[in-house]
Structure formats: C-alpha cells, structure tokens
C-alpha cells in the first residue's frame, strides 16, 4: 500500500476546505495545509494570537516578529486582513465563528473525543495553549495524523487513554492510510489508500469500521 506522506496528507485536507471558509490551522503539520489552498480562492486563515487573513511566510528580509502565527513563526497578512486582541480572537473561536480547525492528535476516539495536549507522562510539564478552545470552538474539527504510533498502536481508538482535550469534538480524521469520519455513530471509512482493504484497516486499528 502507498502511505501518504505529510505533504500529500496536507494536500488531501486542503481539498476538503471550501472557498469562503474561516479556518484555523493548528501548530505543526496542519500549518502545511495552507500551502495547498488554491491561490485563486478566498479561504480565510485565522491565527488565534490575533490575526485573520493570514498570508504565507515572508521573505527573510520582510520578517517582522510582531507578525507571527500561533506557532511563533513569521507570517504575512493579506489585503483584507485584520488584527484583534486575544479576547476577541477566542470569542471568534468559542463562539462558533470558525468553520474548520485542523489539529494534530495523539489519539482520537471513534466518537470524536480528542487527546492532543498531554501524553499523561507524570514528569511532563503540562502546556495546553489554545488546544482546548480550538477543539470545542470550531464548527468542524479535522484531525491530521499518522494512523499508527511508531510502535504500531492505533491512534484511532475506542476510548482515549491520554488526557482529553475535548469531548465529541472531532468530525474527520485524515491519516496516512485513509480518511475517517467519527462521531455519535462511531467511525466510518471515507477513503483508503490504494492497496489497503477494510479488513486490514480493522486489524490495524482494532476498532469497528464500516465504509461511509
């Protein structure tokens, strides 16, 4: 089977973002989705540190450390963009004004519970940032992750064992081997990479799966 690499996965997620959507891309791999949004269509990127209408990374010479994204990387602002304070920014999120949020995850349950902020390791210094706000605020939460951990455990699970970020908040899971819907009805397979069967996917994940 032909696993998707991160770049291909980012492109796949981008295909499901319609023109006119207000979108927040989480730190890390989700940031790459921006590279695959069609340049001739208006998709509005929000960065929760106070920016709507975020543009691509600047040229080295144009870097401004007061124009950064939530991952603290330099960005630009498009014509039509706006700045606002943190209160308004999270009102935007919590109030359901963001259409789609794309996040990474440690685990997602078949019912859409998300664990992406804490491994539960007792000596870890906890840090949550905006993860919990993004998880419950956006109308749709897309997760982007490898289906399996490095040790082969499924990150799509019946019940998260890592500390939760939000309950029943994820609607879609984009992985290196397939795309899933999750929610009240459980998990469904929307698509698989070539060379993979539903039975193999059931074995990989250990969760009940049907085609969507």
């Amino acid at each position, binding site marked *: 089977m032909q696993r998707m690499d991160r770049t291909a996965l980012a492109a796949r997620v981008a295909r499901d973002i319609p023109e006119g959507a207000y979108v927040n891309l989480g730190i890390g791999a989700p940031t790459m989705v921006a590279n695959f949004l069609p340049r001739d269509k208006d998709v509005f990127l929000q960065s929760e540190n106070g920016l709507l209408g975020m543009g691509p990374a600047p040229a080295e010479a144009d870097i401004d450390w007061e124009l950064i994204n939530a991952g603290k990387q330099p960005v630009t602002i498009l014509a*039509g963009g706006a*700045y606002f304070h943190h209160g308004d920014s999270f009102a935007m999120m919590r109030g359901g004004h963001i259409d789609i949020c794309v996040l990474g995850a440690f685990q997602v349950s078949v019912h859409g519970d998300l664990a992406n902020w804490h491994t539960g390791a007792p000596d870890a210094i906890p840090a949550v940032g905006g993860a919990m706000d993004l998880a419950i605020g956006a109308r749709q939460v897309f997760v982007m992750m490898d289906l399996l951990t490095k040790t082969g455990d499924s990150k799509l699970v019946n019940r998260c064992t890592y500390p939760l970020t939000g309950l029943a908040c994820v609607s879609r899971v984009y992985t290196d081997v397939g795309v899933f819907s999750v929610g009240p009805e459980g998990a469904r397979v929307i698509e698989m990479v070539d060379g993979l069967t539903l039975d193999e996917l059931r074995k990989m994940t250990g969760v009940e799966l049907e085609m969507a």
Partner: protein
Amino acid sequence: MINKIVDTMSEAVAGLHDGASIMISGFGDAGAPAELIEAVIAHGATDLTIISNNAGSGETGIAALIKANRVRKVICSFPRQAASHHFDTRYRAGEIELELVPQGNLAARIEAAGAGLGAIFTPTGYGTLLAEGKETREIDGRNYVLEYPIHADFALVKARAADRWGNLVYRKVARNFGPIMAMAARTTIVQVAEVVDLGALDPEVIVTPGIFVNRVVRTSAAANA
C-alpha cells in the same frame, strides 16, 4: 472570490422568516439601520422578536416595524421615548411582549452569545424587579445575577464602510451595538455608506472583522447624507 456585497436591499434581507429574532443596532437614531428596517417591512416577515436598545420612536425604523404589526416581542432596555407611541399603544393593548433588560446586561448577554459563553454572573440588577425569579449567587462578597446569552437569527447593523470580505469600520457613537450584535447573530447584514477596495481598510483599525459579517449593502448616497 468571496464578495459579501449585495446590490439591493431585498437581496440583503433575503431569507428572513416569520418568527425570526432580529438584533438591530443603534442608540436612538445613531447607528440605526433605517434602510434595512425598511427592507424588512417590504419583505413582509412577521411575528418577529426585536433585540435593540430602544423600541423605536416617531414613524420610521423600529417604530414603523411595530406600526406594521410585524413584531411579537421586544427585548430592549429603554422602550419609553418621547415619540414611542407605536410601541406604547401595542404594549398597553397587550399585543406586544416586552423583555426589559438593563442596558449593560443587554450588551453583556449579546457579547456572551457572540463569545460562546453559556451564562454570566452579572452584578447589575441584583435585588431589583428585573432580577426577580433569577438565580443569584454571592461571589467574593458581592451579589450577582445569572444571565443567559441572547442569540439572534439575524443582526441588522449600520456601519460607515466595508470591503468585500465584510470588514467594517463605524462612525462616532453610531458604533454602539453594531460590533457586538454582528458577533451574536447567525446572519449579520450590514448597511454602509461606502464600499471600499479590499486592503483599503487598515488592519489595525478594522472594528468588526469580516468573519462576523454575511452580507453588506450600500445605501444610496442621499440616505447617508
């Protein structure tokens, strides 16, 4: 290309339905979206709940909507005005319901809706008629009343200028309830005096980012003189 500018007032208010809840910006006449209210009257929707600071005065605006018998309920802070006779008459006749809300609680409940809060404990109104029957709580030695968010199906807002993404700037105290109502309604419809090119509004001075705006319509120059 996303373009939230519509050409006509009737397009602006398309989809209004009987029984809709509608927030209307304005404090007195300042910031009142007179042309949009006219469009609502022309549209014909009835059985409306109006959320606004006042309940109209004279023969135009919310007063005209009430006169045309389209309003079932008003949620406001100050219905009684020098020329609020249309409201007064229907209210005394029991034909219109009134939910009276202190002005700051009205603002805070609209903000809570926009910000996705479930409820807020506010000190305003504690111990008064307007808090009767409401849950109260003492927190850190002060008494508060539990108030719930006010959502709406539509907001009608008047702003000074907009671009095609719906970014807004206002003019003087006509700003009043516009920015917070734009955040609290499912569909926000804005009348402006001026439509400007994308990028013409400095991102530092935009008061309402376009994410809170669904449709923008320019009023005729005369209407904004």
